[in-house]
């Protein structure tokens, strides 16, 4: 029987179809050793870059450690890093590049809320899983952004942590709440004041003040006259915060100041008239990265040892930033290890993460809740106790 060219072609096509239908086409071996791409959007330069620089050190270390240990089932992790320069426009451009051209399997970042607000809808549109550490509540919405997950607390949780400290730990009932006139400041006061009232506190003073106002004595006198037992400032403006602390010092008014993390920043410290003005000031922090009785919790202590061994500088940044960076990359690696790199599998796995033991936080997600940070790990710390990038847990907490 003579075999004609057409018959051969028809036969092989049929075979190919049959094989493909049975799903037994083996994937080419080369694809298995391709690196897994992580699209990474830190702000390494620009006005909001101090957080990004800290987080970046942790992320780089984790990826290095994972790759050194053989990667994910033989595949290396590849961070495709695009500096957003603290600019939402740059973040948006980088998203298009990472999701569409580079085909990243997941996006880690943006690391600042301003950029995340601009980037999240686009990442959701391109159907790429996303993990970020930003605080703005609206960034997580399982209906709008079903593939976005948060590794950090929300602004509401941060306020709740401070309110809990004032009302339940310090047992103070008369509270003064003050903010600058920025969007962040006003939104914080408007959210936190009703929360305080619901907890049984009496808000004797609440106001928004222009951060450029050089003299805050009138405001502090008003608080004092209203009988305030504590001041809760919500602002990221070091000038504004230092004026509150300096005025409190000049008035010899000994009430605790409880609020935003910037209270404990080096910029705020540099603007103090005298070092004592930093006493009795408590800022937001995270239980796993605070000293209790002079010691860090076990996981953080081991992490600090590793950082020291790898000669990674962290005394000029904050331990929780570096830890958060490490947690982000490690969470991504654990997910790929368990579920592979397909977007749906990644999301399905993350939806079931329960009490994942990070260095920065213990993360739990469900299909209905993509905010993973537990309330009880948002604590306050003593700002004047900074040592090796970490602070003492504020007094009064039962450990």
């Amino acid at each position: 029987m003579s075999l004609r060219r057409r018959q051969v072609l028809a036969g092989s096509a049929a075979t190919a179809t049959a094989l493909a239908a049975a799903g037994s086409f083996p994937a080419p071996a080369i694809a298995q050793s391709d690196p897994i791409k992580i699209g990474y959007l830190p702000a390494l330069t620009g006005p909001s870059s101090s957080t990004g620089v800290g987080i970046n050190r942790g992320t780089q270390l984790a990826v290095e450690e994972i790759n050194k240990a053989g990667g994910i089932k033989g595949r290396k992790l590849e961070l495709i890093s695009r500096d957003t320069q603290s600019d939402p426009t740059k973040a948006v451009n980088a998203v298009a590049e990472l999701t569409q051209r580079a085909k990243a399997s997941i996006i880690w970042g943006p690391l600042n809320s301003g950029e995340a607000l601009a980037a999240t809808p686009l990442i959701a549109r391109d159907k790429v899983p996303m993990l970020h550490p930003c605080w703005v509540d609206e960034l997580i919405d399982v209906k709008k952004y079903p593939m976005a997950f948060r590794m950090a607390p929300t602004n509401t949780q941060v306020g709740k942590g401070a309110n809990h400290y004032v009302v339940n730990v310090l047992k103070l009932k008369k509270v003064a709440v003050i903010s600058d006139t920025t969007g962040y400041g006003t939104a914080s006061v408007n959210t936190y004041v009703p929360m305080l009232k619901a907890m049984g506190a009496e808000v004797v003073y609440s106001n928004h003040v222009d951060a450029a106002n050089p003299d805050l004595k009138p405001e502090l006198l008003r608080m004092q006259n209203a009988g305030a037992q504590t001041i809760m400032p919500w602002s990221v403006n070091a000038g504004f915060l230092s004026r509150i602390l300096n005025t409190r010092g000049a008035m010899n008014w000994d009430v605790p100041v409880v609020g935003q993390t910037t209270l404990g920043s080096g910029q705020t410290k540099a603007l103090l008239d005298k070092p004592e003005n930093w006493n009795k000031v408590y800022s937001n922090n995270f239980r796993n990265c605070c000293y209790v009785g002079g010691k860090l919790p076990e996981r953080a202590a081991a992490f600090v040892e590793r950082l020291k061994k790898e000669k990674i500088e962290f005394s000029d940044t904050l331990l929780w930033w570096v830890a958060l960076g490490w947690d982000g990359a490690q969470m991504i690696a654990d997910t790929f290890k368990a579920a592979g790199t397909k977007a749906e599998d990644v999301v399905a796995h993350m939806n079931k993460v329960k009490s994942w033991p990070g260095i920065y936080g213990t993360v739990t997600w469900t299909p209905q809740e993509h905010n993973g940070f537990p309330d009880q790990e948002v604590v306050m710390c003593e700002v004047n106790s900074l040592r090796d990038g970490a602070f003492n847990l504020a007094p009064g907490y039962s450990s």
Partner: protein
Amino acid sequence: MFQSIVSYGLAVGAVYALIGITYNVMYSASRVFSFTAGMLGMLGGVLGALFIHKWGMNAVLGFVLVLGCGALMGLVTEILTVRPVLKSIEQHLYVLSTLAFALMIQQVTAIEWGTEAQPFPVLIPIETGTVSAWLDQKFLLPLLACAVTIAGLEYLYRRTLIGRAFLAIAEDSYAARALGLPETRLRLASYAIAGIIGTLAGFTGAQMLLAYFGNQAILSFYGFVPVALGGMGSNRGAVIGGLALGLFQQAANFLVGGIFAAVAVFAVFIVVLLIRPEGLAGAATARRV
């Protein structure tokens, strides 16, 4: 409370008055309302902190250097943003050119210096708390600077030939040129003087206002209010307007507080301008028809 209103109010008012005078000095020499006055004030604080606090320079040397930089900025402003648009002054292109220049400098400051407020050194090394709060240097220095500036300008304009030449070009630049006065050089000198006064305001006020790039917008605006209140070109009016603004603002801080203090200031400003559009000290100009 009274002490705080008076000392803070007068000190901040003196800074506003000096910025107002900066506007006036530039305006008199060129009929250009240059929006660089707030920028000069901001630079006075930032450069002072840079030279003295960061680089550890002697306070006197740092002070002189800051004023030198101010004069230089004044000259650059005149050459880059005023001279090219003088020919078509009725089109008000200077609004764009001076504002653009001021914003550029502000952006460069934000990038190089940072967007956080930074400390300004205590200039006269005395222990805080050893003198009464009335005599704190952060209140006294702006007032002193304001007094010296106004006395110096009065002397210059009324007692010296060169000062009269300034007045001549301010009054009628064509006639002054026809008489052989070097109009361009006098204008340059005016801008240099304005640069010195602007940075002096920022430098002496920086212990209150801190070394902060964002002070530019505040000083540009609050420095303009005394000019509008006191009448364009009137330095005495600017001083009275500035001090009144400072006192009123601080009183409003105590009485109403928060963002309402700013609203109160604007409300009074608008009411004054409605009643006396030419300013409190300005004479109504007759228009020839």
